[in-house]
């Protein structure tokens, strides 16, 4: 009996320790923040929009869940990010939970004024993941971006993050930049950060309306739009289209894209798609001045020929290779020149100089922006044409006979 009592007492005393409910948060009490939109505030420093997933309306249950909208957006403001997040408690019935936040949207206005003040909160918070990706809301506010509804992907967030990935793989004009990447290039003296821009295109007024989901050609949609250049945490300009691709190329992030070349006097007659590409950037010091070498090696296949060409002839292939190389080179040189004009080393050339000659780097690092604009950059492109699809010569050859 004594033994039994002792055992009972022991088990009883262990009970509160083992339950593990010190600060339990039930799933139904949490609001999963999927995206965070930060804008320049009207009354306070920041206006923050929290895009919260509406779990019942996202689950793929048949027939059910189709009724409501997949997301709800709450707004709040504060002089710091944390203050804004805490103020949101006035409006949201549940506790905001950030561990699943996949996207940080920054309004263009705020980006132009400087975004340094928002990053420490995001990096320091143990619940927030620094792998969260960042985009800039270009020509619109972050709030407009996070309130826009999308078709195909029910959650607008997964549309944006998936699109960043796909377009990096297929087009090479956007960059996936997460909070860690941004801060790393921010503190580096030899590299300036870049962030992809996103715009709401079309009728912004109905972007957040469920009407927007009823039409196949949605009236308002999200689209990647250029890459923003930053200096000292301030947005100083945009690079668009093939220039953006040039920048991505130098950063060795291009995996797939396409290049048009002229052939037989016809403009944009042949299209090739690079499959693999590898960029090597190295620095050399000559006469106490750094020189940068960019070598791009890419392998591509021919995807379209809209004129007659004899691609069974390896000499012709070599000519195509040469032309492709020229096109890529001109695109890359153009973006490098633009960056040099803006005195903004987005390619991390400074870091290469650091590796090549740490002593010289110590002398010039504080003046690198100036030095960068005068540094000679040599670009070499080595294209390899590997295959040409499931046809040999194009039908054009027979048409012209």
């Amino acid at each position, binding site marked *: 009996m004594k033994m039994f009592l002792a055992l009972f007492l022991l088990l009883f005393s262990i009970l509160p*320790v083992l339950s593990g409910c*010190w*600060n339990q948060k039930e799933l139904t009490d949490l609001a999963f923040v999927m995206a965070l939109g930060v804008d320049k505030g009207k009354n306070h420093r920041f206006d923050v929009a929290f895009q919260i997933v509406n779990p019942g309306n996202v689950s793929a249950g048949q027939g059910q869940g189709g009724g409501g909208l997949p997301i709800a957006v709450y707004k709040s403001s504060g002089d710091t990010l944390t203050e804004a997040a805490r103020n949101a408690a006035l409006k949201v019935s549940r506790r905001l939970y950030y*561990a699943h936040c996949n996207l940080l949207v920054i309004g263009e206005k705020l980006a132009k004024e400087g975004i340094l003040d928002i990053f420490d909160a995001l990096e320091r918070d*143990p*619940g927030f*993941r*620094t*792998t969260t990706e960042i985009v800039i809301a270009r020509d619109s506010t972050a709030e407009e971006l996070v309130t826009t509804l999308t078709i195909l992907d029910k959650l607008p967030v997964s549309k944006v993050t998936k699109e960043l990935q796909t377009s990096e793989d297929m087009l090479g004009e956007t960059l996936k930049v997460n909070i*860690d990447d941004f*801060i*790393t290039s921010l*503190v*580096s003296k030899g590299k300036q950060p870049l962030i992809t821009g996103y715009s709401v295109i079309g009728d912004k007024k109905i972007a957040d309306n469920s009407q927007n989901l009823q039409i196949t050609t949605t009236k308002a949609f999200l689209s990647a739009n250029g890459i923003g250049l930053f200096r000292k945490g301030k947005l100083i300009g945009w690079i668009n289209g093939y220039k953006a691709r040039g920048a991505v190329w130098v950063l060795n992030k291009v995996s797939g894209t396409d290049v048009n070349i002229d052939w037989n006097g016809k403009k944009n007659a042949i299209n090739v798609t690079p499959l693999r590409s590898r960029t090597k950037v190295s620095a050399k010091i000559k006469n106490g001045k750094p020189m940068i070498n960019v070598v791009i090696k890419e392998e591509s296949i021919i995807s379209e020929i809209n004129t007659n060409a004899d691609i069974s002839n390896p000499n012709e292939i070599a000519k195509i290779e040469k032309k492709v190389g020229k096109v890529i080179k001109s695109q890359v040189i153009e973006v490098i020149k633009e960056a040099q004009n803006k005195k903004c080393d987005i390619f991390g050339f400074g870091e290469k100089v*650091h*590796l090549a000659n*740490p002593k010289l780097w110590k002398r010039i690092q504080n003046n690198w922006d100036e030095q960068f604009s005068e540094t000679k950059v040599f670009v070499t492109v080595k294209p390899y044409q590997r295959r040409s699809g499931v046809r040999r010569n194009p039908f054009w050859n027979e048409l012209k006979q």
Partner: protein
Amino acid sequence: MEKAKIKSTQLFVLIVLFEMGSALVVGIGTDAKQDAWITVLLGLAGGICLFLIYAKLFLYYPDVPLTSYIQKITGKFIGRILGFLYVIYFMYLSARVLRDFGELLTTTIYSSTPLLIINALMVLTIVYAVYKGFEVIARVGELYFALVYCIALLGFMLIMFSGLVHMENLRPILENGWMPILKITLGQTLNFPFGEMNVFTMLLPYLNEPKKVKRVCIGGMILSGLNITIATVINIASLGVPLFERSPFPLLSTVSKISLANFIERLDVFFMLYLMVGGFFKITLFFYAAVIGTSDLFGLKDYKKICFPMGLIILFASLSIASNYAEHIKEGIIIVPIFLHWPFQIIVPVGLLIIAFFRNRKKQLIN
């Protein structure tokens, strides 16, 4: 001392777990920036030299722990004082590691649980382990050694496959020359974790084959040293130097960056599992050494009686040694190496070895 005997493989495993313990968690040599891994290797080399001193002392007196032979070497009075200081040193270190462990959990996942609760749970487990005796601890060590290696291998592969490792982050090597590296080695990595091998001066008598002591211990140190080096290299390569310096727990930052195929991600729990195991062994061994030392100094027949009270002391010491994390780390980097590690790990053992050498030569001459 209790009557226990452990195999050489068990000692090996304990050494590896002990050395990696909190060194992997808090990250060592971060002040050396991209050369942190060099300071780890140099620390390992220095640590092995230090261990040779401890091993020599052990071979002079293979049957008794440090607190006993220190009395034989320096005489009863001074020996007892020194022995007592050693006991306090071990207790302080176990409280320190306990604090490290608790701080990590409270900053990362248990953000609103008081430190007291987390530390108390850990102390309860440790007191229980020590109460059960050294053989039990050694057997648990064998079990967890396998677990830790499984986690480490899996984690290593996931980090590799996620493409996080950018070796160029390690360059330029020796940017600021050897001086800062030597400074950091002597001030930090030599003492922590490699110099902490001096806790084994209390535990070596349990080894069933005293002749193998050098091979087993140095083998264990080299394995754990290489593991720490690899972890440091991976941390720097995947975080980059600025983030590596800013992270209080670099390995945690690295592990939380793992993202494979968009669904194997947020694996912080791997790190937490390791932390529990590593922290447990490190605290347990320090604590055990302190308990055994006390019972040896005061001639207690059964050391088990003092396990619980000493556990309480460690628990409250862990809370009161610093009022915030910054203070705790500052003490660990600036004060502890100079005023505790150097005297107890290096100066006193060297002095003991010199005296022991002359005493034993005299004995041999008489014989």
